[in-house]
């Protein structure tokens, strides 16, 4: 897991982009209930690193982020695109420790659990 920023640096209801040590770009979202989600920052439809700048919300109760380019919605939980289920974003592990947001690839979480 890699520390990316202080928790209160992220505005409730928005995301930030983080650059992992291996060059991976992750979009980290904080919802209004202070829950955190992390997905790949790459919009697979337009091949641009913009997902962190999308709007979050819900569709039928499922928390989502919408691509700021062509507005496809992705589940924040599974990364699956709700408008085209053949496409999905990679999901990353995210947690808060001592007020710091930490992100890692999902396998790391599973390994440490």
């Amino acid at each position, binding site marked *: 897991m890699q*520390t990316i920023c202080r928790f209160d*640096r992220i505005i409730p209801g*928005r995301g930030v982009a983080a*650059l992992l040590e291996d060059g991976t770009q992750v979009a980290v979202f904080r919802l209004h209930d202070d829950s955190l989600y992390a997905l790949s920052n790459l919009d697979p439809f337009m091949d641009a690193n913009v997902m962190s700048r999308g*709007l979050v919300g819900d569709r039928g109760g499922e928390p989502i982020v919408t691509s700021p380019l062509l507005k496809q919605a992705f589940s924040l939980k599974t990364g699956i695109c709700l408008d085209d289920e053949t496409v999905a974003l990679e999901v990353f592990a995210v947690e808060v420790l001592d007020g710091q947001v930490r992100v890692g690839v999902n396998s790391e979480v599973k390994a440490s659990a």
Partner: protein
Amino acid sequence: MSKLVVIGDGMVGRRFLEAVTQRDPSWEVTVLCEEPRPAYDRVRLSAFFDGVSAEELSLASELDGVDVRLGEAAVSIDREAKVVRSASGEYAYDKLVFATGSYAFVPPMEGADLEGVFVYRTIEDLEAIKAHSQGRRHGVVIGGGLLGLEAANALKLLGLETQIVEFAPWLMARQLDEAGGGILKQHIVKLGIGVDCGTGGTKIEAVDGRLRMETNREGVAYDTDLIIFAAGVRPRDQLARDCGIEVGERGGIITDLSCQTSDPDVYAIGEVAAMEGMCYGLVAPGYSMAEVVADRLAGGEATFPGADMSTKLKLLGVDVAQFGAMEGPLSTTYLDPAHGTYAKLILSDDAQTLLGGMLVGDAEPYPLLRASVGGKVPGKLADLLGGGEIEGALPDGAQVCSCNAVTKGDIMGAIHEQGCTDVGELKACTKAGTSCGSCIPMLKQLLKEGGVEVSNAVCEHFTQSRAELFDIVKVTGITTFSELIARYGTGAGCDLCKPTVASILASLSNGHILEGEQASLQDTNDHFLANMQRNGTYSVVPRIPGGEITPDKLIVIGEVAKEFDLYTKITGGQRIDMFGARVEDLPKIWRKLVDAGFESGHAYGKALRTVKSCVGTDWCRYGVQDSVKMAIDLELRYRGLRSPHKLKSAVSGCARECAEARGKDFGIIATEHGWNLYVGGNGGFTPRHADLLLSDVDTETLVRTIDRFLMFYISTADRLQRTSKWVEGLEGGIDYLREVIVDDKLGICGELDALMEKHVENYADEWKGVIDDPEKLQRFVSFVNAPEAPDPKIEFETVRGQKFPAGTTERSHSTPVALGTPTRK
């Protein structure tokens, strides 16, 4: 080549010319037109006083093989020689068509020829009335029928105290019964117009520079400045009488159902024709006659199909409709003096068949009722009369739009087969509702009947429409999305409702759009105050009000673009767009721009974009007003105004319209006397010319009206509904809009004015608000943990001396395509 002479170039004459040239272009056609201008829309004549110009009323079009001789009246006809003579020429004919129309009837009365006494028939009459009314205060209209009410409206618009004097015992006696006439009078008196029925003028005298009209009632006389006779029309059949063609007892050239007169080579159409003895004073039967004669001249067998004399009008803002029979075996009425409505239905003796009826004050059921005449009564009487919900049981053959002859079957076909889902699509598809618009409520009902759910709900989180949310926010004073969704919605929101609410909060002047919770609602463009492009970079557009810019500022833009390596392009809105800015560079770019005096151009927002201008009187030898200054003033007044969709404007300095103002949401065109204001124009996907809202107004009136137009739009439009669709969707269209924002019919103008005043007072440059605020600035980073590290995925290549996003340009730029030249093989 056969020769055709047409006498008269009115609405029916013009329709005939179009029909005949289309069916049989071999005729050599000469038109003798007494009036100095070609055909115009006499039905809309009164719009002249609403600022619609003579040019806009014109129906003239270039027709091949037609020689229209304006200002040249026919004076005699030699039927032996088959020649029509004017004062200056002779025209031989093989066939002759009378389309001379009517003249205004002036009852024999002493003093009817005095100065200040007018009729209401031609544009020249209206111009004379307008000129005479200057500096005067009172006018009398003789006649309380359709034309009289039109004339009274005209005098009211000219600012005169107005009195109607009608000989019949009630208003519109030909269309309404006594109770209907009474309700109509109630409405008109409320508008401040005097109504005196059962009274006839007997004598007019000039007294001390004014006029005095005596009446048939003891001791009743009117002192006034101007008198208009609007007591009906008579067919202009004198020429026919003079050459021995048969005319009717009460006037009009007698024809058979093919419009042929007693001379087989002579036809009569329109108001001058007495078809089987009957004259028709409406334009629709005249159009039918025009088609009949055009068909006959092309060898056809058409006959007059009969006339539907039903009418629906808005007179002085009051709905009046009459359809089918005026009387019958049974009738049922509903009278509501409190709301000023009256309805009467005429029924067969078994009360099963609708024969006719009339409506005053509320004509909403008119299309359904009119279409049902002769058939089954289309609903419960109580609902039909009292404005209840009417279940449409209309047969497929029933005509829904009488202007364009569209049946219910046509509409249902458009819904089911062509997939129309709203009124706009139905209009485009079937032409229904595109002329008078009275059938639009019917179209909505048919959409419902066809199973189309018409929902304006913003999204799954709010059942309300944008307009309803706007009202809720305005009335409750709620300032956050979370409170709004907790109290009025469900769930967490989405990319539809969040920006909508953000826009509403911004329209109501709630501070910087990135302040507090508002920051989380903004679409990416608003969140970064720039337009996101395909590769995740942004474009930057500083405001250049009116398109006027100093060389020094141009240099600053050039320097900024060079320093940050931005692609530059001139926009359609007379400003400069800089593309390819990385998110982390935006604050540095704007620091330089703000220091040089630039402000945000809001190219990223659903907000006012630009007000384009031509150079106007500053430089142009044709300009009649200072269009550049006006454009700058307007752009500065409305900059930053958030709205349901983007807003574009332009100001042209003369009628040549170089700024293309009529393609804008609000466009201003200079006149010699002031400004004309047009609204609801659009370029883009569905181009639409803006409609004239006001003409020849001064700057203060202009600006006040634009204020109200914008705020009324912002208060009531749907999400992402441009002004063009909004204006089209208003029931009653541009006239209704004028009633609301000029005449203040709804009593909301004060509030609209206050909202705009608040916007103007609270405006602050959004970019300055960011670069002076460290908290907001820290959001403009590429990575939260590596603020200055550029996204390595963003790459550019160079084409035509500038940079483009890498990978996108291969097909379109690497092999130049020679456009418009044949490829050599």
